[in-house]
């Protein structure tokens, strides 16, 4: 791995482009280099985040303790009913299990948990170690399923078989098993909502809109969902997808198996929210829905635009850097920043796909740095070079931004306020405002107390 004076890693060159400057294609969707400080997570992580919001399931992690400890209720997916999913279950493998296999322990764990919690549904996640010691998850789950007469579904998510996107696929496969009907499907007029995990109650906001325009919602994958609701998924007549990264695979399969067409939507920002509501109404093709959608959009836009304008006046001309998990979210964020008068000067993702990077490239201004699977040093370098005032990212990026004296908002699992829909657009503007325009930046002084007030911006 060669490196130049600026501490750049030559191998990483392909993963970074500056719009307008070079014509080359951005590289993405590959493995990170050995020895890097990567911000990426693993297959298990991907599978877990997708399935975890199923509220009445036992989510059993088959592996040593850590994998389960770190994923214990870190998502902020809210529930309107069951709370079972908020527990952390692990087989807590020990040395002798590694040598003799973990099947016995897994069996006992399933038996014990099913007896304690009377659940109808168990997910068993495999971690790296299980992939290596070779426990036959499939056979164990099938046997447990028969024994207890409930659904016990294996999730093949050994960490080393890929990155987070492989985990989304593993989760998709598990969901497909779950929704497979045992009787012929009777189609209904309803739609499924894919790729909303009800972080901070976001799915509830969207449910409310759909209800208002007369759309019948069948089930959400997987925010605030439960066993019985998910079982009914095949009867829907349309799938709408919010988080494409995690749900495209599942949507494709559902189209193939149950003839449910899908459309991609986004409820991030006013522009996307309005466009999505129109798209849903138009796809379903009902006059009354189209009219109601227009009403809702007009009413809500008028309401929130007035509030957002106040923030836009204060934020105009600030610059943002984006580093998030998936490409689709990154795209929405660019538009959302525009709504509040902010330019995006750096944008990257952990697992963005080629087409998404193309869209990003078309959307951003010349000179914007686009990068895949970045490390902290790169994030620092480009944020400083481009003079970003704000970073959008996840938990590991937060202190990095703060150390640089840059404002931050969390657009991943730690968000505490819903960022979806019209309400979300207001929350977003408010959050950006409260961090970018916080007086704390005035205390920032590089070389001692006497430098006094520095202006942020």
């Amino acid at each position, binding site marked *: *791995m060669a*490196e130049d004076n600026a501490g750049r*890693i030559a191998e990483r060159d392909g993963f970074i482009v500056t719009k307008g400057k070079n014509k080359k294609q951005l590289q993405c969707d590959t493995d*990170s*280099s*050995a*020895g*890097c*400080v*990567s*911000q*990426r*997570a*693993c*297959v*298990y*992580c991907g599978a877990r985040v997708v399935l975890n919001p199923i509220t009445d399931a036992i989510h059993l992690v088959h592996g*040593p*303790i*850590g*994998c*389960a*400890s*770190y*994923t214990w209720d870190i998502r902020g997916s809210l529930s309107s009913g069951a709370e*079972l999913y*908020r*527990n*952390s*279950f*692990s087989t*807590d*493998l020990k040395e002798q299990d*590694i040598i003799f296999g973990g099947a016995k*322990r897994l069996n*006992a*764990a399933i038996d*014990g*948990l099913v007896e*304690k919690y009377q659940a109808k549904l168990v997910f068993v996640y495999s*971690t*790296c170690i299980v*992939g*290596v*010691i070779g426990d036959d998850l499939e056979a164990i789950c099938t046997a447990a399923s028969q024994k207890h007469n409930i659904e016990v579904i294996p999730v093949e998510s050994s*960490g*080393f*078989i*890929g990155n987070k996107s492989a985990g989304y696929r593993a989760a998709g496969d598990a969901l497909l098993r779950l929704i497979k009907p045992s009787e012929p499907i009777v189609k209904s007029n309803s739609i499924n909502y894919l790729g909303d995990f009800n972080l901070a109650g976001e799915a509830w906001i969207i449910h409310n809109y759909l209800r208002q325009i007369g759309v019948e919602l069948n089930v959400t994958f997987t925010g605030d969902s439960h066993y019985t609701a998910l079982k009914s998924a095949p009867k829907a007549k349309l799938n709408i997808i919010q988080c494409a990264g995690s749900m495209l695979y599942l949507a494709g399969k559902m189209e193939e198996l149950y003839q449910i067409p899908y459309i991609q939507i986004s409820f991030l920002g006013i522009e996307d929210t309005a466009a999505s509501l129109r798209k849903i109404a138009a796809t379903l093709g009902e006059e009354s829905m189209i009219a109601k959608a227009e009403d809702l959009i007009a009413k809500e836009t008028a309401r929130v635009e007035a509030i957002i304008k106040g923030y836009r006046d204060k934020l105009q001309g600030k610059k943002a850097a984006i580093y998030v998990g998936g490409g689709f979210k990154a795209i929405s964020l660019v538009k959302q920043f525009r709504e509040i008068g902010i330019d995006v000067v750096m944008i990257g993702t952990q697992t963005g796909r080629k087409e998404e990077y193309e869209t990003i490239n078309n959307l951003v201004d010349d000179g914007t740095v686009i990068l895949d699977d970045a490390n902290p*040093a790169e994030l620092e370098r480009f944020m400083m070079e481009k003079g970003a005032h704000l970073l959008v990212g996840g*938990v*590991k990026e*937060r*202190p*990095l931004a703060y*150390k*640089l*004296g840059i404002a931050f908002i969390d657009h991943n699992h730690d968000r505490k306020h819903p960022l979806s829909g019209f309400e979300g657009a207001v929350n977003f503007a408010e959050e950006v405002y409260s961090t970018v325009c916080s007086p704390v930046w005035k205390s*920032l*002084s590089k070389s001692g107390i006497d430098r006094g007030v520095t202006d942020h911006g």
Partner: protein
Amino acid sequence: MLDCTPKEITERKSGGMINPAKTCQPIGAMYAALGIHKCLPHSHGSQGCCSYHRMHLTRHFRDPVMASTSCFTEGSSVFGGGANLKASIQNVFHIYKPDVMAIHTTCLTETIGDDVSSIIKTADVAEGKLVIHANTPSYVGSHITGFSNMTKAMVSYIAESTLPVKKEQVNIIPGFVNPGDMREIKRLVKSMDIEYIMFPDTSGVVDSPMTGEFEMYPEGGTTVEQIKDTGNSQLTLALGRFASSDPADLLNKQCEVPAAVLKTPIGIKATDALLMTLRNSFAREIPKELEIERGQLVDIMTDTHFHFHGKTVAIFGDPDIVTGITEFVLSLGMVPVHVLTGTPGGSSNSAAGSFEDDINEMLTTAGITANVKSAGDLFTLHQWIKNQPVDLLIGNTYGKYIARAEDIPFMRVGFPILDRSVHSYLPIVGYQGAMRLIEMISNTLLDRADRDAKDEDFELVM
């Protein structure tokens, strides 16, 4: 989880964990490695583990936590991770330029059996740079064991006895505590006018000041020179037997530095023990300023004892912290009725004794019988509390579920604390730490009393 836990206690045959009270070795190793100056911790395994460990530490300390990973792929897990590790060693020094690279293994690399020390021997490491490693399989021990193992690696790779006569200086292994605690321990030793080397020392690393620049290697941490010199010290103080006694033992074997294993200095008794050990070993007087602090603490204890006397309490978390807190609340007249740690027995192959014995001995002396368990989980604790409710719960952030489900006042101490800030800067050790603990305990109890008081019982002065 809120309230899914059944009250009825049935025998657990599975051995599995429900709501763990521990986590895995590598995160402890990563934390210890951050306590070496200019060290980059390296996780030999898949990306996921490393990402989780960094995330968790980041949430607790709210500071950037850097670590590199071998980025395993399917191939490496079949053919072994030697090639990945060698590439990692090369890349890490090239790109991130640490002085030390501290490698720990994950479950995966332990299971496929990578021989890390031979890989290191055959890797080419530039002059003046250092690679150390610890084996940290997570199916053994806990994050505390991982901390102990990485600290052991510092000794085995670096410490040397180079002088014919030992120096008048003390080594201090602080255990898995916050940087704020490490600072406070250093202050105590300094005020006794004794030369010391604390290792590992994360103060200045995960509580580094804001400068407007991102520093990959902040100023803090024990230097390699200092760690080397620990072999020349007269004495090692291992604070907290679970996290610290193994490395202290090793240092004794390797460099003939005798070790004293003490409790983490939480509360008056354990702080006294620390200072008395230093006084006796180095023939120093306890300075006036510490006498005054102690006197203030005793004054506060007498001023407030009636708030605490007879109050029942449940304590959980890391074994050294739980031991210290238990001793302290006993000295306040409180009654610990449930005491639990997730970490099993002692650390692997350690001379460290049993958590349960330690706690039971303290309780027996105080005439208390209680539920005491090591290698337990929070499901067990929750069941205990359902069957025998308490006035106060003390533990890390995960206790908040139990506190809410059972409507118990809750005080956060230990690791991890994910939902509050500032805690990692402020000590709970030493006399000042004890004052802070009293404030925290009494505020928690009194806020609750105020909240629950009927109008006619509501009083201005408590």
